[in-house]
């Protein structure tokens, strides 16, 4: 029983890790909490659904295409909206990202209605291993996320792009003085953020269903994970996501499942009471 909960919590935590990473990267490099993540997840879910059921791609191809779609949309949004608001400071960006989230979610609702749709995934019997039920979707999710994390880690740690991103996050002025084009790095960051949320959107659709509110339901757990890890720390975001996923699963032992979504809110509150800089973050308290 507990073992099953731990397994489920780990997998749903892994699913949260991708959008939490996206939020963390946005915060580190662009210095604002990106509330557009909910809308981006929904867009990813619908893009995956279109490529998969309407255009006949297999789920892997459809996921990659959905990730590419959301990446493209994210870059375009930076050109059209966020790039122009950078001078207005983080609060304007934050409110704008909320507006963008609404736009993306309602574009999907306008195009496809409120009906719940599902992806065309081969149904397989769950594996039984050491008394645990491991579903096919859980294996797919875990493999996809872990692959993504390894890839992202390599990009951030070993490539010139990763070095430039870390430099811009640490000290944009110094990075600019060393000849790093901030705008280019920012656009590439948006592309990475889009890839992460797009893929996570498809995984969320496999986990739940394709409907307009699918992304919104992840908004608070994702932020809980990102804060838990200390905003701006990629590794922290992954650990935070695992912690939130596990607490949501384990909380079902003590609170009714209908309050599952409130668990991540409780995690945020507790954390702010106890340790406000997050697990691995060194966020300076500003005031």
């Amino acid at each position, binding site marked *: 029983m507990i073992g099953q909960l731990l397994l489920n919590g780990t997998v749903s935590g892994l699913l949260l890790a991708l959008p939490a990473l996206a939020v963390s990267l946005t915060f580190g490099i662009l210095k604002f909490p990106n509330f557009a993540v909910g809308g981006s997840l929904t867009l990813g879910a619908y893009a995956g659904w279109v490529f998969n059921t309407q255009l006949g791609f297999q789920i892997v191809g459809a996921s990659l295409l959905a990730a590419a779609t959301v990446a493209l949309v994210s870059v375009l949004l930076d050109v059209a909206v966020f790039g122009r608001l950078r001078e*207005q400071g983080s609060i304007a960006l934050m409110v704008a990202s909320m*507006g963008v989230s609404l736009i993306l979610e309602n*574009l999907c609702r306008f195009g496809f209605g409120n009906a719940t749709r599902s992806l065309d995934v081969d149904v397989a019997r769950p594996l039984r291993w050491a008394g645990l039920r491991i579903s096919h979707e859980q294996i797919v999710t875990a493999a996809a996320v872990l692959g993504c994390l390894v890839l992202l880690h390599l990009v951030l740690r070993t490539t010139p792009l990763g070095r430039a991103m870390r430099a811009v996050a640490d000290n944009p002025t110094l990075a600019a003085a060393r000849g790093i084009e901030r705008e280019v790095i920012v656009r590439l960051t948006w592309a990475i953020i889009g890839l992460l949320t797009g893929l996570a959107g498809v995984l969320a659709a496999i986990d739940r269903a394709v409907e307009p509110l699918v992304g919104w339901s992840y908004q608070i757990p994702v932020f809980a994970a990102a804060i838990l890890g200390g905003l701006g720390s990629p590794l922290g975001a992954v650990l935070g996501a695992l912690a939130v996923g596990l607490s949501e699963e384990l909380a079902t032992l003590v609170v009714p499942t209908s*309050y599952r979504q409130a668990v991540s809110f409780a995690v945020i509150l507790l954390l*702010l009471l106890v340790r406000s800089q997050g697990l691995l973050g060194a966020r300076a308290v500003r005031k």
Partner: protein
Amino acid sequence: MTAYLVTILVIVAIATLVGLALNFQWGCAGLVNFGVAGFVALGAYATALLTPVVGWFAAMLAAAALSALLSVFLALLSIRLADDYLAIVTLGFGEAVRLVLLNEGWLTGGALGIAGIPRPFASLIAPEHADFALLGFAVALVGIVYIILEALVRSPFGRVLRALRDDPVVAASLAKPVLILRIKAFAVGGAVMGLAGAMHAFYMTYIDPSQFTAITTSYAFMAVIAGGRGSNTGLMIGAGTIMLLLEGTRFLKDLIPALDGAQIAALRLGGVGVGIVLLLLLRPQGLLREPQRKAASLLADPERADAADPSLPASHPQEI
């Protein structure tokens, strides 16, 4: 037609209250609140549950007090940190309120909500004039709240808040109690959201969780951005205009019969999103900017400064 007009005006009045509240928290003090719908819902439910027990006036006060208290609690948790945390905490709070309303059926009636909420003075007024009377009540409430908030904005308290919003470090270096002031500002806004919820409950006479959603919150943000952050008069104009536009979309169905309910809903909510983004891009200062006091006029002698800027009260201590 008259009945419809009265309805629209009451809805505008409620929306204006919500907007005024957010304008105080965000426009004036720079505190982002993504949980507006949650605070309004709290006020509405408190009013619905308490009016039959203690009467409408005490119930309204309780609604305002409850919202203010919870605002203080959330502010205390996160206000020491950067603004981003308050935004995230209030977002979570809004969702938590929704879950409680849905799941604690013994108190809130769950998804069905609460019906038969008595209106103020209901026994004194003939039923055919009930909506008119309520409109009068709503307008009076907006007037009172407007006067109080406007006085607060112009008081030394409001001035320090704006100084904090624009540069907390300088304000702190002038020995202003930054945290306490911010918590107070958030509580004042919360109280007004509670009142807006009370008004909503009186007008609808039945409430359920589906009436307090993202559209309430996003609409309030759009009203504040449109009106010009920090300007209460601008907010009244902004709130009225946007509400009329939103209500106008109800007629879309007659104009374009091909649209279904989900598409109309998507147009309304998505339209608010587009509005927020476009306003931020095109008119970040809003319709009416808050009055800019020129440094020179503050340094001149007070009589002349007041003559130059009619928006200032006649004599004011030089606080800044």
